[in-house]
């Protein structure tokens, strides 16, 4: 029991107190009216030479007492109902607060007055209102996050899907495709299909991560950098460097890392100027891993919505690793630095 609860007065006690105050004041008024009223009558009779015998005095005294009692009783009722009415008005305020919550207006607060059970009730309603508001806000935030996840994953699914479409189109159109080329294309299609499956699995699991421990994660990043190079070397002049990474151990979700590189590749394909050099460097610095990619921007390049979504997707993944994404861009130049710290 808190100190406040110990000190809390009972509503019944307050009502009894009102009755007591009203009764005491009514009694004072009655005594005052009867005493001063009698004195006034005596004074009036003396001034106007009116003589009243004992019976007449008894009669006048009775009238004064009755009038005094009636006035005091009326006074008691008015005062009591005025004081009690204030409490009733507070009950109405509390009811309005409950109605507001019922109507979905959770920010509404009932003003705290006094220190009795009604105050406690108002506090409980305010607490309920605040809790409901917090829950609603949390629900809204979670829904927004879920929507964002669905949006970014849907965007990321498009990257391998586009590759599959390109390879299958190539297989359909080209009449002279060697068996080795066919196998290579089909292997790529299979790889991209697996990637789509991974992404849809994440989507179905609500963004669950599958972390794998790598005793030497440097090899993983070297492989990703190699894949990046082999995917883009036919179209772009690349400068890829991953040798600056020292040997280190860590837990990573390979799918997530692949999505970072896929998004970088998609952006390069869409917006990078093929005439200029495209650079990618993976390096280690102060217990964090830094992926830096830069390129010259093709005329009529960003911004496009999918470009932003790709960056958002990278940002989300970096946040999963306690990292951050810094983008420096001008009309002619683009540079992105992805830092991963918590692995």
């Amino acid at each position, binding site marked *: 029991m808190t100190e406040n609860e110990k000190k809390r007065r009972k509503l019944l006690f307050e009502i009894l107190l009102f009755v007591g*105050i009203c009764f005491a*004041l009514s009694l*004072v*008024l009655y005594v*005052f*009216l009867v005493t*001063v*009223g009698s*004195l*006034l*009558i005596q004074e*009036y009779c003396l001034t106007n030479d009116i003589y009243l015998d004992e019976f007449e005095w008894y009669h006048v005294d009775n009238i*004064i007492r009755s*009038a*005094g009692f009636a*006035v*005091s009783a*009326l*006074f008691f009722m*008015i*005062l009591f109902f*005025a*004081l009690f009415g*204030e409490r009733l*008005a507070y009950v109405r305020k509390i009811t309005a607060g409950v109605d507001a919550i019922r109507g979905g207006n959770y920010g509404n607060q009932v003003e705290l*007055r*006094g220190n009795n059970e009604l105050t406690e009730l108002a506090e409980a309603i305010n607490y309920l209102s605040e809790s409901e508001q917090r829950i609603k806000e949390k629900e809204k935030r979670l829904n927004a996050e879920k929507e964002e996840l669905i949006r970014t994953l849907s965007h990321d699914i498009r990257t391998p899907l586009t590759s599959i479409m390109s390879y299958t189109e190539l297989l359909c159109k080209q009449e002279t495709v060697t068996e080795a080329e066919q196998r290579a294309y089909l292997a790529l299609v299979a790889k991209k299909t697996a990637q789509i499956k991974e992404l849809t699995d994440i989507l179905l699991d609500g963004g669950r991560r599958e972390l794998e421990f790598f005793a030497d994660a440097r090899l993983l990043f070297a492989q990703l950098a190699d894949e990046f190079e082999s995917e883009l070397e036919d179209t772009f002049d690349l400068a890829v460097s991953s040798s600056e990474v020292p040997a280190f151990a860590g837990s990573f979700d390979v799918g997530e890392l692949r999505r970072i590189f896929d998004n970088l590749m998609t952006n390069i394909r869409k917006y990078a100027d093929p005439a200029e050099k495209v650079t990618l460097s993976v390096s280690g610095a102060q217990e964090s891993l830094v992926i830096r990619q830069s390129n010259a921007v093709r005329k009529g390049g960003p911004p496009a919505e999918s470009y932003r979504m790709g960056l958002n997707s990278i940002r989300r993944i970096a946040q999963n690793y306690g990292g951050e994404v810094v983008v420096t861009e001008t009309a002619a130049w683009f540079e992105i630095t992805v830092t991963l710290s918590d692995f």
Partner: protein
Amino acid sequence: MLNSLDLLIIVFMTLAAGTLLSLSLMFLLRNQTAKRVFFYVTSAIGLYVSAIGLRIGIGGWFPMQIAVGGLTALTCIGAIALDLIGKNKATHARIARLLSAAALVIALINAIL
């Protein structure tokens, strides 16, 4: 038909009950607006009772009663002015209420006794 004694008793009882009621409500209610309303009611009754005291004093030429009646009337006006100047300041309002209550009680005693 009511005679002057009946009227005197009715006026006295109404004034006494009204005075105590407005004083009680002015101090016991929690609602600030209601408090303010009863402050003005108290001040108005105070001015009225002071005027009665002054009239009685002038009629019978009782200098003390005239002085007290005048002082209570001025106190009531001062209390209203203080409340208006003080706007929403709690201390000003409290002092104004106390001044008005004291003036009313003294004015009532001055007029009746």
